[in-house]
């Protein structure tokens, strides 16, 4: 083995920690997964290398490390299926492309149905997915048991399992590894990753963005992309417009480490929880947002209790599992549960937000279309429907309930 290859994966620093320059061609605000992905594709696909990512905290501090790492593309509506399927296809090549083992594991995602309505909606979604070229299957209860032996399908269950949709190409990836891989790739392409750099104001002259005021001084920018998830509203307010977003805590939890018992991702809408088991062995669970809006990165314990009771309904053996850790991130929820990626009322200022509770899976696709939008000044065909104007035209992409999970 090349000793350098070993050193690469244990390198003390995967990216430089540069001082901000006074001016860039483009600046991405937000060093989360979508921000890094945007910068990566700006450099790789569009040849923009005089660019920076500014991050108020540090890389790997926010929602990048507060998600449940689930990847799937089985969305109901055409616009969403196209967007998430594009992302999934990029995931399928990312480990090789980024030359980093991101532990992308296509172990399959089950979405359980617990009543006749669930079943009908699930089969409808399977058919819609297939028409859109997204792999999807309907499994009856016995087939669910065969695919995932530890799910309780007994008819005595409070919410009996009547079947499930299965996307075999869905799965999980190691979120930390994705951060490392993207940070390193951006840096290698010449992107300045500037940590500890909080944006305090956005300079707009004659309706056009000209730069940023930051905690590390002013930075002039030809173009600016806001990729700040739950803090997007605070930034757009600086630029003089509002987005239809509410910021909520989203909590998740992991158990202590156990031997591998769960071979796939299991999601349930009616018994509201989603569960997978990390490569290391922790059971990873998540569910819905805390109802109130917040910037505090924490939520109520009763929400965690509800997640765990839902988990135990599906997997009675988890009753003896022990909770290791819970956490909360701030997610940006749109009225139609779909993201906003595109132009803004301010020229050369672009926004990528509203991914809400499901942004991790979209990381590569989100960056791809955002980079295209910034580089060309026009939305990519995939994100054209996800415009800010849709709330005025009424062309909503209503994924509430339709997206195989409650939000």
């Amino acid at each position, binding site marked *: 083995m090349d000793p350098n290859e070993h050193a690469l994966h244990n390198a003390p620093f995967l990216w430089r920690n540069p001082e901000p320059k006074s001016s860039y061609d483009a600046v991405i605000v937000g060093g989360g997964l979508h921000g890094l992905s945007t910068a990566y594709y700006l450099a790789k696909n569009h040849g923009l290398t005089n660019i920076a990512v500014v991050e108020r905290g540090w890389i790997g501090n926010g929602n990048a490390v507060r998600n449940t790492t689930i990847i799937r593309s089985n969305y109901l509506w055409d616009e969403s299926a196209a967007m998430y399927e594009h992302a999934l296809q990029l995931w399928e090549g990312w480990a090789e492309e980024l030359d980093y083992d991101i532990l992308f594991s296509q172990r399959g995602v089950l979405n359980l149905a617990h009543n006749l309505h669930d079943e009908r909606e699930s089969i409808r979604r399977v058919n819609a997915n297939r028409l859109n070229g997204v792999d999807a299957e309907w499994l009856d209860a016995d087939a669910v048991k065969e695919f995932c032996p530890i799910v309780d399908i007994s008819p005595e269950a409070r919410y009996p399992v009547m079947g499930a949709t299965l996307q075999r190409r869905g799965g999980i990836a190691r979120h930390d590894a994705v951060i490392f891989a993207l940070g390193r790739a951006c840096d290698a392409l010449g992107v300045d990753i500037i940590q500890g750099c909080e944006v305090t104001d956005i300079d707009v002259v004659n309706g056009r963005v000209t730069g940023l005021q930051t905690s590390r001084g002013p930075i002039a920018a030809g173009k600016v992309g806001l990729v700040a998830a739950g803090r997007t*509203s*605070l930034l757009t*307010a600086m630029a003089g417009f*509002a*987005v*239809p*977003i*509410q*910021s909520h805590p989203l909590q998740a939890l992991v158990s202590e480490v156990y031997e591998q018992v769960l071979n796939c991702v299991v999601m349930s809408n009616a018994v509201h929880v989603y569960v997978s088991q990390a490569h290391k062995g922790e059971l990873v669970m998540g569910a819905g947002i805390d*109802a*109130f*809006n*917040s*910037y*505090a990165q*924490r939520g*109520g*314990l*009763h929400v965690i209790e509800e997640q765990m009771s839902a988990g135990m309904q599906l997997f009675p053996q988890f009753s003896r599992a022990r909770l290791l850790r819970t956490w909360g991130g701030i997610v940006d929820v749109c*009225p139609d549960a779909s993201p906003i990626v595109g132009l803004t009322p301010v020229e050369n200022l672009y926004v990528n937000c509203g991914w809400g509770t499901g942004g991790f899976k979209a990381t590569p696709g989100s960056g791809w279309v955002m980079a295209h939008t910034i580089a060309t000044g026009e939305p990519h065909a995939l994100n054209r429907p996800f415009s800010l104007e849709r*709330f*005025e*035209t009424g062309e909503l992409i209503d994924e509430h309930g339709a997206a195989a999970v409650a939000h």
Partner: protein
Amino acid sequence: MFQIRCPYCGPRDEPEFKYGGQAHVAYPADPEQLSDEEWTRFLFVRDNSRGRYAERWNHAAGCRRWFNVIRDNGTHEMVGSYRSGEQPEDAR
């Protein structure tokens, strides 16, 4: 978990309540005069600032009445609550 002071019943735990979003969003006085942009703002855009926030809660597992709360959404400090029809200054 919050402890929320219902102005009618007194302090109770958060699971007794349903959240109702931003308070004091009045239905347009003259709805047929609104432009599409104004409708968008009324239907979809709510204040999402950080800090003290006036919001509606319903005591769903109690008196089932709506009331308002001032809460700091950056720190989760509960500043006070007041009845529908009262103003933020009335919070206690």
